[in-house]
């Protein structure tokens, strides 16, 4: 006997003996056996995989989350920046972040499926009530992690969605405001909002989740699997029969997540386009900017039904929000918690199933409604509403005028009003679509800027965005200039209609030879793109262009072209290369007191200021800034200035409409001077 034992030991080899050593001291074999050899009544089934896929999804989040943590920096000046770095500069960062982002969404779907299955199969009934409650708590923890994770990139969409979510927390009676202040780490959103959300997202919530999950799984093993009745097939062991099915389901979930990330790359490759991996996977919006409205703000798609649900209570004020955001969801959760007890009644189980399916259907419906409102303008047939639009434009949407226009025909009026309602929906939807498009442009520009060789300034990305002429120029122009000036490419199809609405010159291409050529064109100078809609319509310049410049004896074609070249050279727009001999000749012509110089100051030609604009440096940054600051200055229009405000001049005791920096941004934007990769 003794010999035989010794023989065994020799046969076992190093690993066998090592295993024995650890088994003696830990009993791991028995533990493993217990863990793996659980009976699955009625054999392994696909319908049992949901719980395991959820655990797998969570593990994926923990792994990818820890690696993301290794590169993420939670502060208002570094959160966006570090996420940008992960996504666009670190090797594999896009994949890591993509998996984390989309697995979070997969997890919500898997949660819903798991819950549905438990309710439908009646797995919440005695003795599994406590485990069902734990499951509901786990669900809330997962949703909490989704909510807190959404903010962490500190981009526009996360920022504004979080403002809404935390404001809703603030309407809880009594403790609401304090609760809100605690969550956002002060009275303003900033560094501590991020550090707190990060601690919640990566510490408190997953920590609590792990504890709950351990108990959830322990109880699951204690009660055994809730088998689908009736059992017709022989039992199987959890390992490997059910594990195999679980593993296949996990791989399928991962394949879907990877598919979502990689399919765009595949499409691009098939189309022969270059693939920029930074744009694969999770999106990164423009950096959060509290001063920039964000009409495209929407929660993540799985919270869209709540967002839509709140609209049901629109017009009820704070009470409505309290009902929609807290009372009703609270009641629904309450009913879910009571399900194990309700299930004891005769029809209780049927009620539970119906209730759950009702909630799912309701959420689905609300989501569809939300999407329909947002994307209505995409799929509605606009041609069928053309007559309604025309009538709307004619009557200005006035119902009395509508009645008059339709001759008081009641049926027609009702039909037209229904169409007008559709138009209203289109307008709302279009506003969202436009905002989304703008958000995409802003995001792309921010990412372009972050990639400059100088990198991001220490103050953070927002500073760079706010001093970027390309993205800020159009906004400032729209706010301060567009009420008079047009900015439209004269070749664009919509040019005529845009110009018709303008009451000052079209500034598109201002400073270019093309713009100057138009000004010196007798057919255009009094048109809407130049002086046509201004007080200078019958002024000296129009008169000069139409009468003097057309005299081919004094003004040869070459002379005019030389003036154009010289003017373009004054502006010196980026990329413009006026021909040198023409510029020299043009300068002489401009300076000459028999030509332009008879009215215009040009360099040192000695012409008086105050009669016409000083053409020295016309269209240059300095010149543009000067005219925006104060067009009534004698260098520009002097007393003949037509309605243009002095944007940089303040009356005593008040602020100028625009700061110097803003004016410079407008000038740079008009001149096309901004960073290009």
């Amino acid at each position, binding site marked *: 006997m003794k010999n035989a034992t010794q023989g065994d030991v020799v046969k076992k080899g190093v690993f066998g003996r090592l295993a024995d050593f650890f088994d003696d001291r830990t009993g791991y074999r028995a533990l493993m056996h217990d863990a793996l050899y659980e009976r699955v009544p009625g054999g392994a089934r696909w319908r049992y995989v949901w719980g395991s896929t959820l655990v797998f999804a969570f593990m994926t989040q923990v792994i990818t989350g820890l690696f993301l943590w290794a590169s993420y920096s939670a502060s208002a000046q570094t959160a966006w920046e570090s996420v940008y770095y992960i996504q666009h500069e670190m090797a594999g960062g896009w994949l*890591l972040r993509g*998996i984390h982002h989309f*697995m979070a969404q997969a997890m919500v779907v898997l949660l819903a499926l798991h819950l549905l299955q438990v309710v439908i199969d009646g797995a919440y009934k005695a003795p599994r009530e406590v485990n069902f409650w734990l499951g509901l708590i786990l669900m809330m923890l997962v949703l909490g992690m989704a909510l807190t994770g959404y903010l962490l990139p500190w981009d526009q969409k996360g920022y504004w969605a979080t403002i809404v979510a935390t404001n809703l927390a603030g309407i809880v009676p009594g403790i609401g405001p304090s609760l809100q202040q605690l969550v956002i780490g002060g009275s303003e959103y900033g560094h501590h909002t991020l550090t707190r959300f990060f601690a919640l997202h990566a510490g408190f919530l997953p920590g609590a989740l792990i504890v709950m999950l351990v108990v959830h799984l322990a109880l699951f093993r204690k009660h055994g699997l809730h088998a689908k009745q009736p059992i017709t097939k*022989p039992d199987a062991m959890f390992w490997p029969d059910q594990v195999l099915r679980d593993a296949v389901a996990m791989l399928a979930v991962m394949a879907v997540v990877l598919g979502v990330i990689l399919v765009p790359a595949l499409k691009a490759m098939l189309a022969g386009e270059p693939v920029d991996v930074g744009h694969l996977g999770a999106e990164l919006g423009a950096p959060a900017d509290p001063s920039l409205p964000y009409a495209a703000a929407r929660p993540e798609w799985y919270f869209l039904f709540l967002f839509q649900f709140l609209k049901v209570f629109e017009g009820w004020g704070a009470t409505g929000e309290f009902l929609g955001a807290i009372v009703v969801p609270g009641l629904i959760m309450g009913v879910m918690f009571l399900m194990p007890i309700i299930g004891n009644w005769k029809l209780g189980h049927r009620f539970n199933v119906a209730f759950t399916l009702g909630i799912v259907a309701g959420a689905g419906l609300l989501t569809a409604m939300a999407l329909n409102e947002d994307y209505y303008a995409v799929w509605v047939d606009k041609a069928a509403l053309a007559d309604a639009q025309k009538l709307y434009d004619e009557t200005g949407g006035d119902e009395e005028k509508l009645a008059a226009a339709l001759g008081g025909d009641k049926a027609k009026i009702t039909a037209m009003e229904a169409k007008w309602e559709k138009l209203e929906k289109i307008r709302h939807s279009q506003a969202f679509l436009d905002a989304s498009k703008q958000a995409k442009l802003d995001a792309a520009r921010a990412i372009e800027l972050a990639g400059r060789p100088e990198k991001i300034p220490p103050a953070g990305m927002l500073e760079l965005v706010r001093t970027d002429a390309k993205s800020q120029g159009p906004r400032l122009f729209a706010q301060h200039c567009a009420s008079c000036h047009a900015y439209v490419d004269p070749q664009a199809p919509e040019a005529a209609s845009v110009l018709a609405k303008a009451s000052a010159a079209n500034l598109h291409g201002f400073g270019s030879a093309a713009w100057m050529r138009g000004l010196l064109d007798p057919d255009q100078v009094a048109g809407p793109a130049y002086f046509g809609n201004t007080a200078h319509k019958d002024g000296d310049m129009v008169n000069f262009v139409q009468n003097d410049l057309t005299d081919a004896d004094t003004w040869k074609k070459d002379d005019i072209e030389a003036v154009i070249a010289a003017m373009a050279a004054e502006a010196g727009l980026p990329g413009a290369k006026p021909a040198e001999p023409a510029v020299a000749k043009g300068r002489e012509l401009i300076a000459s007191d028999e030509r332009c110089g008879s009215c215009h100051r040009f360099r040192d030609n000695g012409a008086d200021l105050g009669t016409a604009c000083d053409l020295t440096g016309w269209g240059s940054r300095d010149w543009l800034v000067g005219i925006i600051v104060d067009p009534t200055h004698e260098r520009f229009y002097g007393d003949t200035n037509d309605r243009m405000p002095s944007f940089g001049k303040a009356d005593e005791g008040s602020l100028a409409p625009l700061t110097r920096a803003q004016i410079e941004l407008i000038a740079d934007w008009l001149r096309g001077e901004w960073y290009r990769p």
Partner: protein
Amino acid sequence: MAQQHRPVVHPADSRRGFLAKALSIITGGLATLAPVGAGVWAFLDPLRRTKAAASYLPVTELAAIPDDGVPRQFPVIADRVDAWTGFAAEPIGAVYLRRAKGSETVEALSATCPHAGCFVEMESTGKCFRCPCHNSEFTLDGGIVAPSPSPRPMDALECRVAKNGEVEVKWQKFRAGVADKVEQ
């Protein structure tokens, strides 16, 4: 429980059981590979980042270094990139510069201690250098004063004076704790 007595399909040691086990491990492993792989891939990113080659940086004017043989401390200013942030003209370190009486040549010593990288300071007496961390002492020309925790003298840096009198130092870092001066 009654169900415990029902038969079990292919017990653990059957051939089909083996196949299922192998497949489970492979499938599960594949599924886990994606997050772990992506994580490790991103985690190894720092290894891809190579240091920029050492270059001469303007530090000060010749006139700012008194020709009395006593080293003076000067900050080294350069643009610096830290992951996503670009710092323009930031102090990135310090050097000691000195020149002998009437001399036009400047000697430069890195202020980084060759022992373990602390910042070497000038004694208040002005007679020697001392590192505050483990008390390595160096002479004014950087020489080692035995016994010393430091394995080598202070690191001399290449230094040149440009035509306009600007003193430029070749900014380099050397591996700490070894007897040889090897660039990091």
